C-alpha cells in the first residue's frame, strides 16, 4: 500500500499550476463566461503544447498512454482555475468513449487528431425527460438498409457548439433497462439534420447545449462498439468522467476554501479578524475536513479506474461523485457566506466556484442517482 503521489504526478501538478496561474487566471474564466464559444484558440494551442490532450490516449494513436491518476493531477488544477473550454468534453467524454468502445479504424480516425488538439468532440447523453438519471436513454435510432436514423433531443451536452463530432447514446431496442438495447453512435456535427443550440446556463464557464436529431443518418462505420450493448462501455466511460469531475471539484473546493480563509484573516469586524470568531472558524475548518476527505476518496476512485476490479471501479466512481460534488457545493456556499456582501458581488471570484460546483453536481448523475447506484452495487438489487 502506498497512497502517496509519485514524482511524475507531483511534477504534472506543479507544471499545470504554473501554466494555469500564468495563462488562465480567473480573468480568463470571467472573459469566457461571457463569450459564446467559451475558449480562445490561443489558450487551446498552449494547452496542446502542454501535451494535456495526449495524457490518456494510447501511444499507438499519438498519445502518452498515462493513467487516470496522472490525468487527475491536471484536472484538479483545471478545477482550481475554473478553466473554461472543451477539454473535459473532448478528452474525458469523446476520446474515452472511442478508446473504450471503438474499433481500430475508428480509433485511427479520431484519436490522433484529438491527441494533436485538431479535433474536438463531446457526448450526447442526458435527455429532457431523464432528469439527473444518465441511464434514462429513450432517443431512438432505427435501423434501415444503409445504417441507422437518429431522432430525438439530447440536452446538457457540453461544448457541442464547438465540437466536430459527438458520441450519441441512443436506443436501438425498446425498453427501460439501459443495460439492454443501447447503442453508441459517432455523429459528425457537420451532418445534415443535426442542430445545436447553446443553452443560457448559470455557469458560463461550462457551456451546455441542446442537440436536436431530426432523421440524422449514421452509416455502419459510425456504430461505436457492439449493437445494443452500448451501456457496458458507456458506464466505464462515465465512471472515468465522473471521477474526472471529482478532480475538478477537489481543485475548485480547495481554491474556494483558500478564498474564504484568506478573507477571514483580513476582514475586521468587532475589532478582530472575523476568522477569530468560532462561527467563522468552524465553517472554515469544516471546509478543510471536506476538501481533504474529497481528495482521499478521489485518489481511491482514480486509482480504482485503472487498477481496481470492475466492481470496485464502479462503486468508487459513484461514492466519489456523490461525496466530492456535494462537498464542493458546501464549500463554495460556505465561501459566499464567509465573504458576506463581497461574496454576493460579481466582482469576487467565489461565485465562479459556486456555479461550477452546481454544474458538476448535476452532471453525469447527481448525488441522489449515485447513492442509489451505490446501494444497487452493494446489495445486487
Amino acid at each position, binding site marked *: *500500500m*502506498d*497512497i*502517496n*503521489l*509519485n514524482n511524475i*504526478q507531483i511534477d504534472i501538478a506543479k507544471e499545470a499550476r504554473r501554466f494555469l496561474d500564468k495563462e488562465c487566471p480567473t480573468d480568463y474564466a470571467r472573459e469566457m463566461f461571457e463569450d459564446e464559444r467559451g475558449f480562445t484558440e490561443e489558450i487551446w494551442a498552449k494547452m496542446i503544447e502542454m501535451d494535456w490532450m495526449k495524457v490518456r490516449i494510447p501511444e499507438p494513436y499519438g498519445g502518452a498512454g498515462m493513467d487516470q*491518476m496522472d490525468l487527475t493531477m491536471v484536472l484538479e488544477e483545471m478545477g482550481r482555475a475554473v478553466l473554461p473550454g472543451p477539454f473535459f468534453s473532448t478528452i474525458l467524454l469523446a476520446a474515452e468513449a472511442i478508446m473504450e468502445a471503438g474499433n481500430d479504424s475508428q480509433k485511427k480516425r479520431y484519436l490522433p487528431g484529438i491527441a494533436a488538439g485538431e479535433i474536438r468532440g463531446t457526448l450526447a447523453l442526458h435527455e429532457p425527460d431523464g432528469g439527473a438519471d444518465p441511464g434514462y436513454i429513450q432517443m431512438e435510432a432505427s435501423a434501415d438498409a444503409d445504417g441507422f436514423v437518429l431522432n430525438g433531443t439530447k440536452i446538457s451536452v457540453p461544448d457541442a457548439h464547438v465540437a466536430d463530432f459527438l458520441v450519441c447514446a441512443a436506443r436501438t431496442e425498446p425498453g427501460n433497462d439501459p443495460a439492454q438495447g443501447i447503442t453508441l453512435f459517432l455523429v459528425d456535427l457537420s451532418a445534415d439534420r443535426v442542430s445545436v443550440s447553446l443553452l443560457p446556463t448559470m455557469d458560463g464557464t461550462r457551456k451546455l447545449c441542446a442537440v436536436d436529431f431530426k432523421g440524422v443518418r449514421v452509416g455502419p462505420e459510425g456504430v461505436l462498439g457492439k449493437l445494443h450493448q452500448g451501456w457496458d462501455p458507456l458506464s466505464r466511460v462515465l465512471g472515468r468522467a465522473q471521477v474526472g469531475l471529482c478532480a475538478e471539484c477537489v481543485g475548485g473546493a480547495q481554491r474556494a476554501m483558500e478564498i474564504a*480563509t484568506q478573507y*477571514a*484573516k483580513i476582514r475586521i469586524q468587532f*475589532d*478582530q*479578524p472575523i*476568522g*477569530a*470568531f*468560532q462561527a*467563522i*472558524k*468552524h465553517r*472554515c*475548518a*469544516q471546509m*478543510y*475536513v471536506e476538501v*481533504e*476527505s474529497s*481528495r*482521499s*476518496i478521489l*485518489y*481511491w476512485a482514480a*486509482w*480504482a479506474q485503472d*487498477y*481496481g476490479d470492475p466492481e470496485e471501479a464502479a462503486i*468508487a466512481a459513484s*461514492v466519489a461523485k*456523490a*461525496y466530492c460534488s456535494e462537498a464542493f457545493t458546501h464549500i463554495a456556499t460556505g465561501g459566499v457566506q464567509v465573504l458576506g456582501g463581497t461574496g454576493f458581488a460579481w466582482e469576487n471570484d467565489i461565485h465562479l466556484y459556486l456555479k461550477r460546483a452546481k454544474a458538476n453536481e448535476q452532471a453525469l448523475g447527481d448525488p*441522489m442517482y*449515485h*447513492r*442509489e447506484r*451505490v*446501494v444497487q452495487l*452493494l*446489495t445486487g438489487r
Partner: protein
Amino acid sequence: MDFRLTPAQEAFRGEFVSWLEKNLPHDWDPSRYRNYDSQEEWGRVYREFQRRLFDGGYTAMHYPKEYGGQGKTLMEEVIVSQVLFFTCPELRIPGVVTHAMAVPTIFTCGNEEQKREFLPKILDGTHIWCQGFSEPDAGSDVANVSTRAEKQNGHYIINGQKVWTSFAHLSDYCILLVRTDPTVARHKGLSYFLLDMKLPGVEVRPMTQITGEAEFNELFFNDVRVPVEMRVGEEGQGWQIAITTLMFERVLGDAIMGAAYERNIEKMIEMASQTKRSGRPVIHDPIFRQQLAQAYIEVMVLKYHGLRSLSNQLKSKIPGPEGSIGKLLWSEPNQRITEAAMGMQGPNSQIMGSSPWTIQDGYWQYSFLRSKGNTIEAGSSEILRNIIAERVLGLPKDVSRAKRQ
C-alpha cells in the same frame, strides 16, 4: 499509488485471520454486542484474550521486542487492529485507552526503566490503564487542570479530582496529568505521571452513563504519594507530552474505526433486509436506500482518508495535517449512521433489552446512545475544529484567548 496490501501483507493478514478463528474465547458469541454481564468479567475476558494475542505474537507489531512488541512495522499493527475491530470489538474495548494512549506515551516519552517495567505487562494482558486528564473544571479546556502534585522527599503528594475516567474501575494504572507549578503560565505548570491505582488515597467512584452502563468514573486523590520515578519527562513538560505523543498514534485509531464501521455497514444491510415498513423490507424504500448509501460513503471516506494518512506517515515519519481530521470523520458519521439505523426500525427502535422483537441484540440502540459520546470524548468536535482552523488554516485565536495568553 497502490491501495492494495502487498502479497506479504495479504499473507500475514490471512494467517492472522485464521489464527483468530481458533483463538476467540469459547463463550464469546459474535451475534451479541455484549456477552458479559459484569464489568469485572468483561475486564477478565479482555486480559485473557490480550494474553492470548501476546502469546500468539500479535501484540504491538510495530514496537521493539525488548518491550514486548514484535519488531515489525506500523502496517502490520494496522492489519491486526483492523481484523480485531472488524471481528470482535467487544474483546478490545476495555483496553482501548491502554493501547491508544498509555502505550504510545510510555514508549515515546517514557525513560528506559519505565518502558521495561510497564510495556511488557500491558502487552501480555496483566495491566489495564486509564487516562486521568479531564476534571470538573478542565473539560475541553484541559490546560485548566488543577489536581496538584507537590514534591516532598522523593515523592509527589497528589490531591484533587478527575472525572469521566473510562475503565478506571478496571484499571491497574493511570496516565495522569497534574499541576506541579501553579505560579507559571497554565500550559507550563503541568507534569505527567504514571500512577499505581492501588496506592493509598486513590478512590474510584463509577458513574452511570447515557447507555445505562458504568464504564466511566470519578477519581479522587487524597494525599496520594507517588515516587518521583513515576514522572514522565521533566517537571513542566506534561502538556507537550500529552499533546505530541497522541498525534503519532492517531492514524492507527482512524484505521481501526474504519474497520469497525465497515462491519456496521454489513450489519445495517442485514438489518435493513429483515426489518419491514409497510410490509416490505426497508431496504426497498428509496429514502432509506439513500441513507444506507450515505452511511457507506462516509465509511469509505473514513477508510480511505485513514489509509492515506497512514501511508503518508509511513513515508514521511511525521503526521501530516490531513491526519488532524480523522477523529471528525468517525465521530460525526457514527452519529448519523446510528440515527439512520434507528429510523429504519421505526417504533421497534425503542426496544433495547431482550424481547422477541429485539433487532440485532439491541446493537443499534446501544450504538446510537454510545455515539453521542464520540463527539465529546478525546477532543470535542468544537475543539478539533478550533485546532484545524488555527493550526492548519492559520486563522487567528479570538481576542479573549489571545489576551489571556
